[in-house]
């Protein structure tokens, strides 16, 4: 079966978006192909910033046929009394080219009709492709659409299209460009490439100095980076953003190593790293926490490496000279002197200025200092200063240095080391992958910062929906949960939220904030591979101690393999079931009659302090262990005691007792939610 090549030639895509767009296009195309019932093999995605290409293996030459039934005349009209076809039925058959044996009778409402089974032959794939390729491209989401000649809108103008089924051009058209067999190699080092066969694509483009396979480019980049690391005994300071840029920037990457003028090596390492990484230009290298004297760039194509190296070094020199002047400018004023100016910077119209934000952070920090037993004075100082670097030239020029610069300037201003460190760390984690603060004050300040970024927007009604989250509330909510879980912060988050809620304008109830954070916790547990039934079990009751929830989930997961657990879960399920819809509260042990009843009561009295002790010590496995000893008495209870007995008083007493027993279990987990085998 034929191989299909589609290549869309474009003016240079944004390097940071090229891969995402390519993948979205592949998905949209496969979706269309499947909706059109065209069988296909593997769909390989190839892309550079100047082309999106698909190689579809074993593409069927036509759509699959469809068999459907077409309704003809009513039986009373189509058949005469002898059962022979009337002219009406024969006409119907002729119209669809059917044979009498393909007719069937089916009732529709009151009447019976003749139906013809008709096979609709699939159309040729080439014809289908003409329809689905433009549709698939239109379905690709882009950060911004542009027009270039008044026609189709896309991320960048489309300049050529190649569409080949094996060796034949598929006559499709995209944004006014007709497909052919002519592709284009590297802008300066390749030439136009006439493709005889779809299968020639990757090789012919490589000969024209274009690596269309992103894997091949990635390998080349990785090897070049590793080579420079080895040669200079340094580590590349890559970031996910930089990597995306590097992979997207070139069709024929070629490493060029340059040197940083020594006068700039004294600048703070993060500044040099940011200046080099800016716009995905260069890969900085570091050695033992200091910037190395070399950097790496990837040239597009096979230009003169000496010329390019000199150019790179000039650009780096210019930018580092800028950075140094920003640094000198910023140092003219201590951070603390910039704080009052925060009153002039609007953070968000409803949530006030950056100064208002700082005031809230200080209030939250006061609570956190109490909760975590931290010294209030340095934490408050860090909170006061932590946003001041937003007013420095350096952070305006290199936004990624927010916080980091604050830390550096604070240290140079002579602020305490722990204050400087907390300022530097408080912006972390910036992303899901980013590391967390390490110092206790940094953790607290970060928690305050993220919490402020959740409570504020939600209180004024900016609750994220679907993919809409302009304030990054979800990211911040996840950061709150990560800090609690990974830093082992034991406190009642909900109580804290209640206490600080009045600092915020807005009318959304605090319950919205809590529900949102609770939901973030659920996501966090799921991301940490806690099975959903365990998540349900430990989250059956709202609990502001997020760390406790996480630890209970872990304890339960550790128990998941043990044979006692399913039996215990079933036993507890019996308790939960019988309590459904029952209101009974309270009981009197004097009313217990049956042995099994008394037996469970004694067991409960023995177990309760054990469970409570274990809970207080946060030893949740131990709590489970204690609960597990109730399994046998519970089973016996249900075997021998008729809870729903005639005597209303006895019944209420029994239900009241089971309620209390159930409460004890629920403080650990609602085991009845576990999915147990059998």
């Amino acid at each position, binding site marked *: 079966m034929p191989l299909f090549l589609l290549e869309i030639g474009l*003016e*240079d*895509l*944004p*390097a*940071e*978006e090229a891969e995402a767009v390519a993948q979205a296009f592949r998905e949209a195309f496969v979706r269309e192909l499947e909706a059109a019932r065209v069988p296909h093999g593997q769909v390989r995605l190839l892309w550079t*910033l100047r082309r999106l290409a698909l190689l579809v293996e074993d593409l069927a030459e036509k759509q699959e046929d469809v068999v459907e039934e077409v309704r003809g005349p009513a039986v009373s009209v189509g058949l005469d009394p002898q059962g022979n076809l009337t002219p009406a039925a024969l006409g119907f058959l002729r119209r669809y080219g059917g044979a009498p044996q393909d007719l069937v009778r089916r009732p529709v409402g009151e009447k019976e009709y003749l139906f013809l089974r008709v096979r609709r032959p699939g159309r040729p794939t080439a014809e289908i492709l003409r329809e689905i390729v433009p549709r698939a491209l239109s379905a690709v989401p882009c950060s*911004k659409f*542009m*027009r*270039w*000649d*008044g026609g189709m809108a896309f991320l*960048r*103008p489309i*300049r050529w299209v190649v569409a080949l089924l094996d060796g034949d051009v598929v006559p499709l058209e995209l944004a006014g460009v007709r497909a052919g067999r002519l592709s284009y190699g590297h*802008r*300066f*080092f390749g030439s136009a490439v006439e493709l005889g066969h779809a299968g020639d694509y990757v090789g012919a483009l490589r000969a024209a100095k274009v690596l269309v396979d992103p894997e091949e480019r990635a390998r080349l980049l990785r090897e070049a980076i590793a080579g420079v690391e080895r040669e200079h005994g340094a580590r590349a300071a890559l970031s996910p953003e930089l990597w995306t840029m590097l992979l997207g*920037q*070139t069709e024929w990457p070629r490493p*060029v190593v340059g040197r940083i003028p020594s006068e700039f090596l004294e600048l703070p390492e993060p500044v040099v790293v940011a200046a080099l990484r800016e*716009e*995905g*230009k*260069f890969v900085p290298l570091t050695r033992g926490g200091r910037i190395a004297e070399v950097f790496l*760039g990837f*040239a*597009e*194509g*096979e*230009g*003169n490496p000496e*010329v*390019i190296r*000199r*150019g*790179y070094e*000039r*650009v*780096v020199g*210019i930018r580092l*000279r*800028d950075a140094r*002047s920003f640094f000198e400018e910023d140092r003219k004023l201590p951070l603390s002197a910039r704080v009052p*100016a925060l009153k*002039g*910077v*609007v953070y968000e119209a409803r949530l006030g200025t950056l100064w208002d934000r700082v005031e809230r952070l200080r209030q939250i920090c006061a609570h956190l200092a109490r909760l975590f037993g931290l010294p209030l004075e340095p934490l408050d100082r860090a909170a006061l200063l932590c946003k001041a670097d937003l007013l420095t030239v350096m952070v305006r020029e290199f936004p990624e240095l927010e916080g980091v610069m604050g830390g550096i300037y604070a240290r140079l201003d002579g602020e305490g080391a722990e204050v400087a460190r907390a300022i530097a760390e408080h912006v972390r984690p910036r992303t899901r992958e980013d590391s967390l603060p390490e110092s206790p004050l940094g953790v607290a300040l970060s928690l305050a910062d993220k919490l402020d970024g959740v409570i504020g927007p939600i209180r004024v009604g900016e609750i994220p929906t679907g993919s809409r989250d302009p304030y990054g509330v979800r990211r911040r909510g996840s950061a709150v949960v990560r800090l609690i879980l990974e830093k082992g912060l034991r406190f009642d988050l909900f109580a804290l939220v209640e206490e600080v809620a009045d600092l915020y304008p807005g009318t959304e109830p605090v319950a919205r904030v809590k529900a949102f954070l609770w939901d973030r916790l659920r996501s966090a547990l799921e991301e940490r591979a806690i099975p959903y039934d365990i998540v349900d079990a430990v989250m059956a009751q709202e609990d502001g101690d997020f760390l406790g929830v996480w630890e209970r989930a872990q304890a339960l997961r550790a128990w998941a393999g043990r044979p006692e657990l399913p039996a215990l879960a079933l036993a507890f399920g019996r308790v939960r079931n019988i309590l459904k819809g029952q209101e009974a509260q309270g009981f009197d042990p004097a009313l217990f009659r049956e042995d099994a009843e008394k037996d469970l009561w004694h067991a409960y009295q023995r177990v309760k302090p054990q469970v409570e002790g274990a809970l207080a010590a946060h030893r949740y496995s131990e709590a489970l262990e204690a609960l597990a000893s109730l399994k046998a008495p519970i089973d016996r209870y249900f075997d021998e005691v008729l809870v729903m007995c005639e005597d209303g008083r006895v019944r209420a007493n029994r239900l009241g007792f089971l309620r209390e027993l159930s409460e004890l279990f629920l403080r650990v987990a609602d085991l009845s939610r576990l999915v147990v085998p059998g």
Partner: protein
Amino acid sequence: MRTFQDMVLALHRFWRDQGCAIVEPYDLEKGAGTFNPATFFGVLGPRPWRVAYVEPSRRPADGRYGENPIRFGLHHQYQVILKPPPADVQDLYLRSLEAIGLDLREHDVKFSHDDWESPTLGAWGVGWQVWLDGMEITQFTYFQQMGGVDLDPPSVELTYGLERIALFLQGVESAFDLRWAEWLTYGELFRERERQFSVYHFEQADVERARQMFDFHEAEAKECLDRGLVFPAYDHTLRCSHLFNTLDARGALATAERESYIARVRALARGCAEAYLAEVIGAPVSPRDRP
């Protein structure tokens, strides 16, 4: 290309041959060639338009007292407008670099995503910074909007940073060492000027008077617009824009105030664009006007 002026002349010849009208810089302070009426008004409406010109561009905040090799309070842009954009516009641009003597096979040329926006003009477009060995030498933009008006057809704007390109052509490290003519350096022409304007914009300019001048020109622009005098209104808009830049460089504007000044200039620019479309090119374009 031995001199700065030879480079300019070569660009003039190249773009003249592509059907551009070579027009002159506009005689008012402005932050970029985009503000020249040949661009601002030329890209509006359906009429095909091709122009090229040098524009001395003033950005007070970019001044460095003549001490930075490539940053200046006034630099020279070479501006090209191609409306509608030809399909081979990228190649055309690259050929213009070859026409001024750059051998692109020696260098690393990248079209790096950079969408352009001018909040004061109410204009935006998508495109690239063109990097030559990592240095930005051109802003390449498909305009989508000007003066708040959607553009149909779009235009391509090429803005060459002439000083930067000349560094490559003349093989020097500082723009002040460039030869403007055989007997004259860029430094002789501009270094002292740069120093003085940096002093003026960062230390001297009277903030209160600048605010007042802004208010005067804004009032004048509004009255001109009321009387259908689009071009005088636009001149006063340009003056407002420059006074805003002066206030900004002087560090006189808090964030919220800055936003409000930008909004005031944008409102004027929008008024000019709309009045121009309604009153000036309400008339049909005659075929002989097409390039």
